[in-house]
């Protein structure tokens, strides 16, 4: 007998682990096809320039060169890199880019692409293309880009203002009039790169009956298919997107970074074409987390009650809009959501600049918000003389209350438990006494941050389409195939989905074959984003499995002369409950079913429901007040994940998120030269991703408060680990040194500067 108990909650090995550890997993860069050409972009060295001429004659005459595309022969249609216009309705990002234009708007923008018989030939030809540029003034800072007289980046627009996202509730003026304390602070966040191990890559081929197949490590294959179909004026049925193994995505692989260019080459040459980015290209030619300038003002009463919350954020979109408006919406709502305040005002001003393009990255605007909000709350706590945790407990949403973002009640709620368990493990109450354990030049401090998150955005109900489906099919021999639209970017979601099907069907997981990563044979899905895959696709899989089981039991009921309700399917047998002797092998039932009707195939669409995950993070640090160096002594992270279906996978997700959060907080930043707009650290040598040796002890606490709408109670866990880290660490640093670092990343130099800025601190050592 196999019951959900045997499968749900078990740390079963990942489906893709054997392929990866034996080196047999095929990534996009590994693909080889007969007659395949290799592509190479020529990218602009200028961040802002007009192209006056492109001479490809020398390059075209070079050996092995098949095709060269530029603005003069392949401008392509107007499009947006954002996937949202494919699967959403209502508030859409506007289209603002072409495959190639006679103007470049960021350093690294594609100017030409070459297809040739070898990588070396393509690189040599790309270098031989002669482009004449007329450089234009460069602006990389959003405030400067908004100033009058700033160079206009998209000349069809009136200014560099790309969009404004307002969220206005109540009357903030009245709220501030009522306030006894007003705090006004400014924060600056950084440009963090996803830094996936696998550089981006793409291959494309057109078969003789016109089917365009694109291979890409993209986390949103179905939206990519729809977008390519639109761009090339093809029915979606004539575009197939296949996703090989993905070597990291983290949100940054949801748009079009190579696909339409490579597809155009494949259509033009009638040969398969493959493009593999080099590491520097990955830094300059794919999206990074938005740098945001945040002006936040809070009004409160002496008891800590918030009377008004006012946030003005300037969001640096870079040269093109992509998902900037969506990120800005999420960013704004993360200020206005968890803590009660009647008068809330957010304006997200999205600005075009000549910086590289910003986009989606795990957390999608929320890490920036929490870095500012959680620090201001600590400052308020100090002003009103409350423990920072107690202030938050007074202000935060409680179980059953309406979530102001979604308008839906919090039907599952583990935040109080997260706080209780996290604070206890951390020793929050004893943190002041531990300060004395440090000796000069080390100073100790503790800080915390809270999080409310989402399991997908279907709950928002503002036109985002998050439907998904699954099919579960019994073959004639009783073997099972499960098809899902989910994309596994290393998250382990396919392993977890198989566990869900296994629990529902009473079959061992290894008996279920998973079909995924190919739009031609998988159900339509919005893609891996917003911590939604397990929640949405998991519900679909569970329902599809239940549907398939119901059909099997119906057929078996006839054979066993029993009502289907009295039957059970488990371990490959159908039997009558309470009468184990009366049973049939599953293969027999499926064979009869095929004779009588057809194959058994369950289908389901996922419900659109809200299931926010919660977290409480606690950090204790020691700061060297002579150098600014930081040691993290303890990090306790308590997460409400609803239900951990595969415990080790959930731990991996949370821990991996925290690790990226540490990098965001302390050292990661893509440096863009303000004069030229060029990236100054487009390598793993100069872009500082922390290594395993740099990791502090991280203790995870899994809080399981099942959500009634989640599959077996599960909620999303992909993003929450990352989001509160910078806020929690910033608070710990402030507690240690007596001053705040309001700019990310909080490097040793910035920490030291903050310490030395306090009168009487620093100086002679």
């Amino acid at each position: 007998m196999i019951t959900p108990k045997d499968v749900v909650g078990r740390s079963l090995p990942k489906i893709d682990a054997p392929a990866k550890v034996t080196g047999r997993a095929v990534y996009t860069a590994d693909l080889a096809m007969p007659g395949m050409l290799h592509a190479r972009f020529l990218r602009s060295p200028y961040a802002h320039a007009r192209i006056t001429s492109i001479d490809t004659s020398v390059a075209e005459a070079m050996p092995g060169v098949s095709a060269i595309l530029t603005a003069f022969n392949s401008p392509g249609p107007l499009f947006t890199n954002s996937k949202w216009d494919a699967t959403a309705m209502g508030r859409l990002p506007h289209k603002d880019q072409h495959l190639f234009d006679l103007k470049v708007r960021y350093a690294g923008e594609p100017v030409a692409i070459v297809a040739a018989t070898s990588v070396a030939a393509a690189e040599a030809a790309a270098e031989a293309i002669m482009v004449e540029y007329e450089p234009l003034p460069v602006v990389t800072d959003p405030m400067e880009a908004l100033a009058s007289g700033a160079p206009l980046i998209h000349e069809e627009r009136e200014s560099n203002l790309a969009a404004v996202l307002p969220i206005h509730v109540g009357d903030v003026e009245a709220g501030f009039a009522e306030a006894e304390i007003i705090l006004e602070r400014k924060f600056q966040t950084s440009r963090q790169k996803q830094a996936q191990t696998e550089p981006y890559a793409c291959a494309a081929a057109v078969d003789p009956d016109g089917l365009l197949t694109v291979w890409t490590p993209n986390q949103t294959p179905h939206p990519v298919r729809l977008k390519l179909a639109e761009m090339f004026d093809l029915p979606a049925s004539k575009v197939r997107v296949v996703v090989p193994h993905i070597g990291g995505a983290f949100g940054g692989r949801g748009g079009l970074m190579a696909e339409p260019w490579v597809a155009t080459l494949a259509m033009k040459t009638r040969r398969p074409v493959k493009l593999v980015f080099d590491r520097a290209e990955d830094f300059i030619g794919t999206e990074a987390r938005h740098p945001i300038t945040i002006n936040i003002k809070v009004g409160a009463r002496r008891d800590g009650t918030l009377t008004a919350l006012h946030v003005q954020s300037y969001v640096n979109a870079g040269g093109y809009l992509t998902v900037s408006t969506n990120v800005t919406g999420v960013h704004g709502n993360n200020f206005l959501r968890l803590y009660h305040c009647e008068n809330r005002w957010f304006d997200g001003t999205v600005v075009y600049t000549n910086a590289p393009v910003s986009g989606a990255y795990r957390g999608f605007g929320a890490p920036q918000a929490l870095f500012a909000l959680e620090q201001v709350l600590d400052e308020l706590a100090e002003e009103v003389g409350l423990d920072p945790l107690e202030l938050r407990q007074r202000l935060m949403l409680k179980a059953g209350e309406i979530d102001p973002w979604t308008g839906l009640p919090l039907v599952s709620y583990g935040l109080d438990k997260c706080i209780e368990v996290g604070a206890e493990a951390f020793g929050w109450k004893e943190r002041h006494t531990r300060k004395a354990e440090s000796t000069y030049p080390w100073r100790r401090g503790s800080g915390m941050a809270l999080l409310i998150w989402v399991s997908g955005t279907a709950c928002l109900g503002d036109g985002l389409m998050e439907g998904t489906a699954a099919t579960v099919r019994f073959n004639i021999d009783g073997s099972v195939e499960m098809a899902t639209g989910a994309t596994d970017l290393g998250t382990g979601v396919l392993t977890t989905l198989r566990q869900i099907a296994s629990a529902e069907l009473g079959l061992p997981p290894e008996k279920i074959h998973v079909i995924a990563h190919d739009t031609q044979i998988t159900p339509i899905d919005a893609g891996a984003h917003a911590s939604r895959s397990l929640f949405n696709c998991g519900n679909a899989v569970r329902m599809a499995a239940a549907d398939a089981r119901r059909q099997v039991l119906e057929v078996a009921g006839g054979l066993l002369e029993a009502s289907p309700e009295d039957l059970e399917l488990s371990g490959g047998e159908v039997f009558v409950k309470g009468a184990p002797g009366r049973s049939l092998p599953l293969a027999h039932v499926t064979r009869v079913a095929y004779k009588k009707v057809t194959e058994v195939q369950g289908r389901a669409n996922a419900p659109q429901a809200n299931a926010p995950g919660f977290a409480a993070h606690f950090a204790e640090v020691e700061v060297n007040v002579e150098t600014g160096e930081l040691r993290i002594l303890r990090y306790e992270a308590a997460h409400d994940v609803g239900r951990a279906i595969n415990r080790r996978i959930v731990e991996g997700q949370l821990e991996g998120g925290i690790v990226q959060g540490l990098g965001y907080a302390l050292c990661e930043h893509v440096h863009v030269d303000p004069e030229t707009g060029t990236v100054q650290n487009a390598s793993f040598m100069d872009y500082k991703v922390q290594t395993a040796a740099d990791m502090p002890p991280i203790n995870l606490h899994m809080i399981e408060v099942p959500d009634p709408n989640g599959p077996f109670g599960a909620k999303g866990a992909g993003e929450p680990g990352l989001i509160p880290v910078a806020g929690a660490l910033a608070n710990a640093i402030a507690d240690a040194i007596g001053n705040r670092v309001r700019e990310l990343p909080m490097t040793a130099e910035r920490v030291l500067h903050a310490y030395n800025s306090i009168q009487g601190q620093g100086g002679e050592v």
Partner: protein
Amino acid sequence: MALPEFTYLRPGTLDEALSMAAAHSGDAKFLAGGQTLIPILSMRLARPAALIDLGRLAELEYIRIEDGELRIGALTRHRAVAENEEVRAACPLLTAAVSQIGHAHIRNRGTLGGSVAHADPSAEYPLAITVLGGRIEMASAEGRRSLPAGEFFLGPLFSALGPEELVTGVAIPLPDPRAGWSFREMVQRSGDFALVSVAVLLKLEDGLVQEVAIGVGGATSIPMRMAAAEAALVGRAPTVEVIREAAAAAAAEVDPTDDIHASAEYRRNIARVMVRDALLEAVGRVGA
């Protein structure tokens, strides 16, 4: 990017390697561990016509202690030096320096010759050899020569090494076994290039500083001895006050520049703290 095209040469002897370099009139690069050269090629920062792979030159792979000197061949891997017990006993400063080079993978492949020839001002070997008073041995088809470290390193990634010349090894005078020493780095993450590195070798006589060498890397264009800081110590008892004075002198002597990783001001500040700490550590290690 893919490596640019080059002719690959694999000599069996040193003489053969040197005549190959001469035949290419300076347009060839010697390949040893490849830990710097290969990234430079793939980033297209250099496009030599030929690579001369030194892999077969076993004659350049040695660690010897003879005639009061520690001699290390250019092809000796960092790991071999870091794990050599005789080196540890005779010259612990060098062991400490080499153990801090990059990550284990880099130490497994990288060589002394490559590190010295690259002349990175924040690299460990150049600083350690400078403070230990070592000489760099070189050879070309024209003959052999050697230079003290102070005359070899001329600027960032710039040395006295000629275009057809090869670093063959170093000769380091064995420090007095009673000398105190320190080698410290500040890095942004483990295994990284040092923002600032400091090496100290110090001898006391009757409680007074008899000899001291203080070198700073990362905050200067070459690994540099801090003359004023050294002068502030010699002949005096190394009290905390005196050491602070020397550290302040070193901070005035360094000449850091701003870059994306740290400002010049921060590096100067760190140099002061690190010279102070290195001196305190070295004094604490002085033997009887």
